[in-house]
């Protein structure tokens, strides 16, 4: 799988190469499919078909519900099984007649009806034991369809159902860290990677982030750590993951790029949230200190390793050390100092947002640039409306901050001009 910017460029280059006779026309599709792309855009007929089967699925649910009381058990079973089999029969018919994409939409309908059948059979036979098992069964059915057919829509459904299953286990049944989800998630993510399906990778990343978010309290109960300590897991771990993912070749590995993006997104959001944790006077445990030390070393070590390959700069190293040090320091300081940490950690968050923006610009990474811009907007709005009680304090903070940023901008521009000026005579001498 290749990242989107690579595929966009390859499509443009292919048109030029074909027009110049460098590449035969008939090789276009083969070349594009080898990098996980296709010559055509997204087909609107397939999108309409998928939307259509979702509506049909909802209609089938409502129809069965509306006539449920009047139906005998045997009639119910005929309707339930018959509708599912009919959906797959239509999928087979479309596939056999050369319209596999539309057939895929009906595979999705079959998966939806499989889930509907689980719930209605449970209702018919008064099966009420641990209902998240029903969601898991539905998800496994979707995953089987995704892997066997194969079906991207079924995989997306499986990921959504996996999230729902984990939500039910953790929120409705107080599950102590829902670890089985990780095995389910790994199967989905591996399939998305095997299918070379980028949105599937994105969905997998989002599903994992969702799981991490809903397991915050479970982690706390399991580890016995304070709010701030638990939140640092969500900073140290994605920072380490992002640092390590950057060491992989960006253009050649879309997975590393995607993982890096989501890890960075997660890290940036949680770092900004750090000062929101309760002011609990929880003494940091030895286990947490070990955890923080290991992951800090992993992050900083990855940055150091990448510096020789120009993946990371000295600024990145300083930023990584800054994040690790300020995150660890917060856990020690949160109890005794209370609200006084708000201002320094607001400033810390701004420093990290600016660093992120600079790094995004350096690598021309639109995801990081956009994320940093949104983060700056959120930071500004929060700081403007929430942080200062007095208008004068607010005015001083923003004016000084603005002057410093403009000065920084002018300073950077001056450095850039000096470097360009130095480079020109050197080039002239060389010629």
């Amino acid at each position, binding site marked *: 799988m290749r990242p989107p910017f690579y595929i966009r460029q390859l499509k443009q280059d292919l048109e030029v190469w074909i027009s110049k006779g460098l590449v035969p026309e008939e090789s276009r599709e083969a070349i594009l499919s080898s990098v996980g792309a296709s010559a055509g855009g997204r087909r609107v007929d397939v999108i309409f078909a998928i939307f259509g089967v979702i509506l049909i699925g909802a209609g089938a649910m409502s129809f069965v519900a509306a006539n449920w009381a009047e139906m005998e058990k045997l009639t119910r*079973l005929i309707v339930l099984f018959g509708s599912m089999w009919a959906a797959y029969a239509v999928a*087979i018919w479309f596939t056999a007649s050369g319209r596999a994409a539309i057939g895929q939409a009906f595979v999705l309908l079959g998966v939806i009806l499989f889930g509907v059948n689980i719930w209605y059979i449970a209702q018919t036979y008064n099966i009420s034991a641990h209902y998240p098992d029903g969601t898991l069964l539905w998800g496994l059915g979707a995953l089987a369809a995704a892997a*066997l057919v194969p079906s991207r829509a079924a995989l997306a459904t499986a990921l959504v159902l996996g999230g729902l299953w984990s939500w039910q286990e953790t929120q409705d049944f107080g599950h102590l860290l829902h670890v089985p989800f990780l095995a389910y998630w790994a199967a989905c993510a591996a399939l998305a990677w095997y299918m070379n399906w980028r949105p599937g990778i994105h969905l997998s990343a989002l599903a994992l982030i969702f799981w991490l978010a809903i397991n915050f309290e479970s982690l706390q109960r399991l580890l016995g750590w304070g709010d701030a300590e638990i939140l640092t897991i969500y900073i140290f771990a994605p920072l380490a993951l992002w640092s390590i993912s950057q060491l992989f070749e960006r253009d050649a590995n879309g997975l590393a790029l995607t993982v890096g993006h989501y890890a960075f997104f997660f890290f940036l959001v949680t770092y900004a949230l750090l000062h929101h944790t309760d002011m609990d006077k929880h003494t940091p445990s030895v286990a947490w200190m070990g955890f923080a030390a290991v992951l800090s070393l992993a992050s900083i070590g990855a940055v150091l390793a990448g510096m020789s390959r120009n993946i990371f700069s000295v600024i990145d190293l300083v930023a990584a050390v800054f994040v690790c040090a300020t995150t660890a320091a917060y856990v020690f300081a949160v109890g005794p100092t209370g609200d006084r940490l708000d201002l320094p950690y607001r400033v810390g968050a701004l420093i990290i947002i600016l660093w992120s923006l600079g790094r995004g610009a350096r690598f021309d990474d639109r995801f990081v640039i956009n994320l940093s811009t949104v983060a700056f907007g959120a930071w500004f709005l929060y700081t403007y409306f929430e942080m200062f009680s007095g208008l004068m304090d607010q005015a001083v903070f923003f004016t000084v901050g603005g002057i410093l940023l403009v000065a920084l901008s002018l300073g950077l521009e001056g450095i850039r001009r000096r470097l360009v000026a130095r480079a020109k005579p050197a080039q002239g001498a060389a010629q």
Partner: protein
Amino acid sequence: MMILRILVVVALQTAALAYMILDRQAMLNSSRVVTLKVVPVDPSDMFRGDYVTLNYAISRLDLAQLDGDDAMTYGDTVFVTLVRDAEAWKAVAVRRGRPFEVEGGIALKGKIDSVDGADAGGRPKTARVAYGIESYFVPQGTGTEIEAEARAGDLSADIAVDAQGRGAIKAMRSKGRVFYVEGIF
């Protein structure tokens, strides 16, 4: 090839649904049946339409009055041993992990839903147990009628218990008269 794969998916999903039905039928065929007094309420569920929630006398256990274990926490799997007491059955023992054997008793498997109170040793005084037989699905709009019967103390349920201790609603009774029998069709 893709057609064959779709057929495999159909077979797997059909087998999963068939297993749900046949497993329930195997439980209902058990010769071990206990009758329990119930007191329902009437919530609604997005997925399941109307149903009544059945509270049994054995749903809340006074641990001091029972043989077996008394140190248990949320989520523990327990076996509640029941013995016949006139028309209905009552709990005489509870134990985690495996049944507490009592002559003439039948052990019903459940999960601790919550525990309340604590004695001097920190052990709970009462425990609420879910057996997976707490929901009874009814035609839309009839839930309140059944609830009224339950309030009058007229409702009871026959529970089939399989060899593993799992329970399934086999029949519902009003004033001792069977008005619903669970069957495959």
